[in-house]
């Protein structure tokens, strides 16, 4: 007898529909899975057999063939356990076929017949569409963001009974939903845990992160250890605007697909409610390229740059990251997506992040102060790592000094809080939206010429810098875009004057060592 059930597998951050067909016929007892399953998928046989028996069903001593269609898609992961088991029960006459028709199922089975959560439940649920859906109970919050009617499953036995109408579904009532344009989350309730009001001093650093948030400019913070680079970077994310519905869903999808193996926590830590707040990711320099940009030998998982999409990717100790890692960021920084290709599969993952780098000016961190004890060769090696192509990606490069002790002990002026600065950022983003871009960093070529006209004196200034070689032609254009953001933040309007350009120029130092390089 033949039975079939709808399910899905995840590739990258997208779900792909899979039809699970089970055929039970006479012959020597056997259990085979066909249709391009990978090893983890083939192991389903053992889990399904144990779960079926544990749940008190009969395991048919016959010839069982499981086919996973379409057969050209490589299937990975245990999320097909539950649909295989259910189709097997139907095919062996232990379960009515009718309640399963048109319903999608996801879930890994434990040997005891329990239904365990799966990685990527959100994109899986999305592809299964609007029909009824049964998912592991612990994935339910996540899934209901896109499928409000989904039901939760705790055990194989329970699912069978609920489908037959013998017992009620164990899941709680839906709490939140995203309908067509529905509202999710409540950003006011999600206050960032850190606030700019905690940062004393750092006038330049505060300005830099405000400009970075407003203009979407990638930012490099250069300074000695303990100067407050990480503190500033963490507060940048609090200045960014709330995510749109689309962005929030995309972030949730990526985090769901990344699953529990990522630093970022177990499945239950994945954003079970859509968060309106942009993510903040801070990969360590010892992370692998795969952990950083995504991929993997068996399955395509999103990396840190995708987990940071619509948010901030903070790379502390940028100079310590291997050159290959920095190189792998080039395409995503240009295009906002990352293409991950493995032997048989490829996936396009979102990677639209604001890059914030932090680095010491030299290995000991003190250059150009006479306290620096690095040899010229050490400094040169450091400078080479942080030169040309790497530096070029940062519109803003700011020197962060240890704050003046006076300002640490309350001697400084009262400082603005995140709540004070954020409206200016949002205002600037709105002005940018009026130019047809998400932020001023996106203004290139003609668009920059049109939206960032220069005062004649400012033209002379830029020409002088290019002539003297302190700015490249490209660098001059980036300074111009930053100057435009400065104007937007101040509530002014173009043309760009000399003062704005001079400040923007100072926010883009050319030498991370502060002149210590020989």
């Amino acid at each position: 007898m033949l039975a079939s059930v709808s399910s899905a597998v995840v590739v990258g951050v997208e779900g792909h529909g899979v039809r699970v067909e089970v055929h039970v016929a006479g012959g020597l007892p056997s259990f085979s899975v066909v249709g391009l399953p990978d090893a983890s998928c083939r192991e389903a046989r053992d889990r399904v057999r144990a779960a079926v028996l544990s749940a008190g069903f009969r395991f048919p001593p016959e010839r069982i063939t499981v086919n996973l269609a379409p057969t050209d898609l490589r299937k990975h992961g245990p999320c097909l356990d539950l649909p295989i088991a259910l189709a097997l029960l139907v095919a062996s006459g232990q379960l009515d076929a009718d309640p399963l028709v048109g319903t999608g199922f996801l879930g890994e089975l434990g040997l005891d017949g329990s239904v365990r959560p799966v990685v990527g439940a959100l994109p899986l649920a999305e592809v299964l569409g609007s029909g009824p859906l049964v998912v592991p109970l612990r994935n339910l919050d996540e899934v209901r963001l896109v499928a409000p009617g989904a039901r939760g499953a705790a055990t194989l036995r329970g699912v069978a009974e609920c489908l037959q109408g013998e017992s009620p579904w164990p899941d709680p009532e839906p709490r939140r939903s995203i309908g067509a344009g529905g509202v999710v989350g409540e950003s006011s309730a999600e206050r960032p845990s850190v606030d700019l009001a905690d940062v004393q001093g750092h006038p330049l650093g505060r300005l830099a992160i405000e400009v970075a948030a407003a203009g979407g400019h990638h930012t490099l913070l250069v300074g000695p250890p303990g100067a407050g680079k990480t503190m500033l970077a963490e507060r940048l994310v609090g200045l960014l605007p709330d995510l749109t519905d689309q962005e929030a869903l995309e972030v949730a999808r990526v985090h769901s697909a990344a699953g529990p193996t990522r630093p970022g926590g177990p499945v239950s830590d994945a954003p079970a409610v859509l968060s309106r707040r942009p993510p903040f990711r801070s990969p360590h320099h010892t992370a692998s390229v795969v952990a950083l940009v995504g991929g993997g030998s068996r399955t395509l998982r999103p990396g840190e740059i995708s987990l940071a999409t619509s948010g901030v990717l903070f790379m502390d100790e940028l100079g310590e990251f291997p050159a290959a890692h920095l190189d792998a960021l080039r395409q995503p920084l240009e295009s906002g997506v990352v293409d991950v290709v493995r032997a048989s599969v490829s996936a396009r993952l979102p990677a639209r992040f604001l890059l914030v780098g932090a680095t010491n000016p030299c290995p000991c961190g003190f250059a150009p102060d006479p306290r620096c004890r690095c040899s010229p060769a050490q400094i040169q090696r450091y400078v080479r790592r942080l030169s040309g192509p790497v530096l070029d990606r940062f519109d803003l490069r700011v020197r962060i000094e240890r704050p003046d002790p006076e300002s640490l002990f309350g001697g400084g002026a009262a400082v603005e809080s995140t709540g004070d600065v954020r409206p200016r950022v949002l205002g600037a983003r709105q002005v940018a939206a009026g130019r047809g871009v998400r932020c001023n960093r996106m203004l290139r070529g003609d668009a920059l010429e049109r939206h960032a006209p220069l005062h004649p004196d400012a033209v002379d200034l830029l020409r002088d810098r290019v002539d003297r070689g302190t700015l490249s032609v490209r660098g001059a254009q980036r300074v111009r875009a930053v100057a435009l953001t400065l104007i937007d933040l101040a509530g002014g309007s173009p043309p760009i004057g000399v003062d704005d350009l001079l400040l923007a120029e100072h926010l883009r130092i050319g030498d991370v060592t502060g002149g210590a390089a020989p």
Partner: protein
Amino acid sequence: MNPAGPSHRPAGAGLPDAAYLATMAGLDLVGPATLRRLASLGDPAATWELIRTGRVPESVCAARAVAPRSQVERWRRQSETVDPESAWIRLRHLGIGVVALGGDGYPRMLLDDPDPPAVLFTLGDPAVLDQPCVAVVGTRKSTGYGRGVAHDLGRELAAVGVCVVSGLALGIDAAAHAGACEGGAPPAAVVGAGLDRPCPGANLALARRVAALGLVCSEVPPGTRAQPWRFPVRNRVVASLASVVVVVESARTGGSMSTVDHAVARDRTVLAVPGPVGNPASEGCNALIAEGAGVCTGVGDVLAALGLSGLVRATPEDRRETPGGDAATVLDALCWRPESVEFLARETRLDLRAVVRGLDWLERHGWVRRTGGFVQRAAAPPGGPPWSP
């Protein structure tokens, strides 16, 4: 022991003496004094034959930990692996010349030296050393201030026809050479390693420029790596070539101080550039001044020491426009060490925009230099060459 007769001349007959000396310079444990003793044995080709056959007189060997007998034996074994003729061809191929003590092209300043190099390997023109030479030296761990001073001195000395001599090391040496390359007169460099790798990679481009415009020379043959013990030995050549030695920045101990010792031993004038109190890179210079060395505050002091003071104005007048307004306030807040813009904003109580605007004016008018987010006063007003108005 008798010098070997003509019948012992090896196959490479016809090679110039310098070829044999150049090969001997590459033997283990051969320093300048040993090489001079080898050279004094007579015909270098015959001396090479003595080395090859292990018959070098023990009196040639330096008093070292190594017993003379085993040293002679070591040379004999080494001589089996090198051949003066192919070494000479290789030198030609690299474009490297050899001048020998007592031979043509040997620098005059070195002739009276108590410890002259027996040979010098050269890239470029040794005749540039016939000009008055000034050594501009200092630490590798320099500050922006020191490199600024060294660069200006190098340029301004070269502009009045002085040959600037230094060691092509990172820091002060490199800054002085870079300045000299802009100035006009050919510069000269004395390096401690073989001329195939004369200096740290970062300075190779500079080394090529110095060789193209002037001279890069070394006491040791190509293939010799930079060994720490060679630097003080090299420094004596720098000191010996120069009529005046200017120390721009130096710690209390270090390579520049060995150059000073060699210069004092040779009766050369030593000048030191004063620096900020508390900066380790200037401690040596300030101490030299306290001990009675001359003070160098600009090219005029060096030329006076050279006896060429008539070439430039005694005190170059400051032709920079006097700053006003915020620029003046910012300049007042700036001492000689590099400061951040945040520091300036705090000191002057001006906002960032006003500070940056002031700095732009000051930079355009030659009062300050900016690097990597830091600002410091420009070292000295660029004094023009003597023939400029």
